[in-house]
């Protein structure tokens, strides 16, 4: 087994997250899919750090966690605000703006 398997796993999960974003309708679930994508990026970063035998990738993964945490706060606040207005978290219901 080589560390490549980790990269493949992470690529697969990234793709799964991307599909989830496109398929799911609930804004919160869509957001969770984005979190899955960020997590799989972290796995890649850690694995690359290991392959290179250094720590830079780990530090980057650490920063990604900080960024993701801040993003979660902002995102959930926005989603809650629109939920309170409409009683629905479905992205289909956000349809006032269109052609």
């Amino acid at each position, binding site marked *: *087994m*080589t*560390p*490549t*398997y*980790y*990269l493949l*796993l992470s*690529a*697969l*999960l990234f*793709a*799964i997250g*991307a*599909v*989830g974003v*496109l*398929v*799911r*309708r*609930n804004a*919160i*679930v869509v957001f*969770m*899919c984005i*979190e*899955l994508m960020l*997590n*799989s990026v*972290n796995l890649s970063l*850690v694995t690359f750090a*290991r*392959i290179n*035998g250094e*720590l830079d990738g*780990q*530090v980057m*993964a*650490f*920063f990604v*966690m*900080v960024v*993701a*945490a*801040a*993003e*979660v706060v*902002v995102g959930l*606040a*926005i989603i*809650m*605000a629109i*939920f309170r207005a409409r009683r*629905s*978290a*479905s992205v*289909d*219901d956000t349809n006032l703006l*269109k*052609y």
Partner: protein
Amino acid sequence: MTSFSQAAVVLAQQGGEDVVGTGEAIAFWVLGPLALAGGLGMIFVRNAVHSALWLVVSMLSFGVLYIVQSAPFLGFTQIIVYTGAVMMLFLFVLMMAGRDSADSMVEVLRGQRLLAALFGIGFATLLVGALARSLVNVQAQVPPDPYDPARGGGAGGLGRLVFTDFLFAFELTAALLIVAALAGIVLAYRDRREGPKRSQRDLVEARFRGEYKRRSPQPGPGVFATGNSVATPALLPDGSIAPESLSELIESTNTARLIAEQDRVLGSQAEHDDSRALLAGEDEQGSEQEGERK
């Protein structure tokens, strides 16, 4: 923690040239499929809360995979911060907002799911294929020893990098965290507009000074009423509605929303799970427009 990560390091260093040892291989082949199952579970389960729980499975597996890959600090941060804090935040919001919101199976954009699935499979094949072909004989270097303070890995090494190579990025995250705090304040904070709370005596006096329209309480549903909710107006003896018993709040609320709430209370929603189905006519129009747009 110490013995665990040391064990991981030992495992990782087993086998001389090939730093990926048997123990790690076992860990990977157990946790990898588990993480994959978590991801797939998240996108295929209809209930949002279940999705979140599947995601937790994925994230926990990730955490352990980090530890196995001699990144113990990140592994524990992942479990504590991500799974512990971030996912709990998600669950909390889900419980407040979308607990009962199962995803509808109605496709608003026709063929979108199929396209998305094709995109996903294509993207995954491309990426995995390319990576698998390009990274055939990659060998991991021996990881820095987490317990060597000078050059080592682990939390100390991360800290060293944070304050040297990535100092500016680190300072920049401060701005990010302030913005996040501001977001919470801006979108959730409401200040109370009324002044000091009035006691019952103040209220009585205010009533008799004529600050309110009535001195007595509003009339109740009365003996002819069929229900005792505030939404049911009181009936006068001749069967007509007593106008003063109408709740201003309810009368001024949007009718469509009231009907929707009623439907929800009565449970008639079970027939049409899709919340948009309540406004059937409009909805179809909308999706047709979107279909055309596609």
